[in-house]
């Protein structure tokens, strides 16, 4: 990381840094490390400066209809089954043992809903692993840029608390989400098949509590990141002021050295912002489609619970509400991860200039 400080010509023009994909001067230090991130951003910082809405819109998946069709394929069988259930309920209206029909229906719904839920959990795991790999490579580079820009404590924090926290979260999610979801689905199905009332709401409450805990963890970690950033900023400012004072005290060339250092630092501040925005956009372009997919799953599950309401199948409705809670929990984990990345990077970008 110290190599960043020693090399000359670091003050790249602002327009070049903001453009992201534009070629930077070849003598800029460490370009091989951070340039791929600037090039890999789906939208540049300049796009956001020009038209923020259009740039944000550009992060959405290219064809939301295709995404919808993909999710619908998972639920086609389930929706057809529920249509058949509505038909059977209509035929048996006022006749037969509805409890028995509901029992068969809840078993069928459980069997048909299992695979889409597992596929969804697999997608979340896969994305978490991908994001973890990206951050393991990116955050040390970002920390290096921060250190080169005179924020050595901030750089260390980026590679320390933030990286380790995110890695732990991603690792736990990737390792635990599938078994947890399997257990939750099994318990939900058993509770909904059972004739005991109150078990299914208990399952839902468990899911709701987990979601609430995730939201709380997100808030606490964001506050911690903020406090840490303020602390590191104070330390870095003190170090920087001391360095400038020492450089300024050198006879004859002191002022020139101090001015040159200011120019170098200004260049790194710009690089820090561009790199942060690029990373957020790279992750955002992955996060938005995944979150949309989760929301579509939630929408379909809510639709299924409404269909069950039409066929007066209370057990099936309870099952779908439990499944919707599971999807909400997955969405909360994904949102927590992205929230932490965004909070960490934005705090490093915005606090302390950049």
């Amino acid at each position, binding site marked *: 990381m110290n190599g960043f400080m020693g090399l000359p010509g670091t003050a790249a023009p602002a327009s070049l840094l903001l453009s992201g994909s534009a070629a930077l001067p070849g003598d800029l230090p460490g370009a091989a490390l951070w340039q791929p991130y600037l090039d890999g951003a789906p939208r540049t910082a300049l796009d956001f400066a020009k038209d923020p809405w259009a740039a944000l819109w550009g992060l959405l998946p290219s064809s939301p209809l295709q995404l919808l069709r993909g999710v619908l394929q998972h639920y086609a069988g389930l929706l057809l089954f529920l249509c058949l259930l509505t038909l059977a309920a209509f035929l048996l209206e006022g006749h037969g043992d509805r409890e028995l029909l509901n029992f068969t229906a809840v078993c*069928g719904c459980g069997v048909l809903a299992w695979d889409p839920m597992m596929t969804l959990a697999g997608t979340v795991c896969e994305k978490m692993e991908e994001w973890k790999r990206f951050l393991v490579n990116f955050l040390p580079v970002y920390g290096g840029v921060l250190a080169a820009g005179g924020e050595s404590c901030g750089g260390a924090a980026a590679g320390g608390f933030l990286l380790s926290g995110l890695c732990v979260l991603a690792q736990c999610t990737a390792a635990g989400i599938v078994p947890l979801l399997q257990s939750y689905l099994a318990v939900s199905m*058993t509770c909904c098949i059972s004739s005991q009332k109150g078990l299914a709401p208990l399952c839902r409450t468990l899911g709701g509590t987990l979601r609430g805990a995730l939201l709380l963890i997100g808030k606490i970690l964001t506050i911690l990141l903020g406090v840490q950033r303020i602390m590191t900023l104070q330390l870095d400012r003190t170090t920087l002021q001391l360095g400038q004072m020492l450089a300024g005290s050198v006879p004859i060339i002191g002022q020139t050295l101090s001015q040159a250092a200011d120019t170098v630092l200004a260049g790194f501040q710009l690089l820090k912002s561009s790199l942060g925005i690029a990373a957020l956009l790279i992750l955002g372009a992955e996060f938005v489609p995944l979150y949309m997919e989760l929301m579509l799953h939630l929408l379909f599950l809510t639709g299924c619970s409404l269909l069950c309401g039409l066929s007066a199948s209370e057990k099936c409705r309870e099952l779908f509400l439990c499944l919707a809670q599971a999807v909400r929990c997955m969405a909360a984990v994904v949102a927590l991860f992205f929230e932490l990345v965004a909070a960490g990077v934005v705090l490093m970008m915005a606090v302390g200039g950049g």
Partner: protein
Amino acid sequence: MSLPVSLFAALLLLTVLQLVLQKYSPLFAFLLSLAGAVLLAFRIGDLLQPVLAGLALFVRRTDGQAFRCLVRCAGILLITDYTRTLCHEAGADSLGWCADFVGRCLVLAAAFPLLEEIGGKIWGIAG
């Protein structure tokens, strides 16, 4: 005469006949009720044939065990309900209970593959 009108007219006639017969000969009333049911089933059979064929195609296309189980259960429940009502009408309450019990057992047997699959998934989690 359209099919619904003819069916309702036949039902009305059968009800009046049964009311008369029940007073003098309950056995004939019961047989009339049974014959009426067969007649009605036969009459709506043509109407239901395309619906049933469509349902069978629907089940085949989805290729799901859950669909077959649901259709089978609905059928069993309908037949059980009719049989129980018939037994109660004939004054054979215990037979009605038996019909109910048999229906429950048959539904359980029809839904058993689904329960087995759920059990297999839960067993798979346990290792």
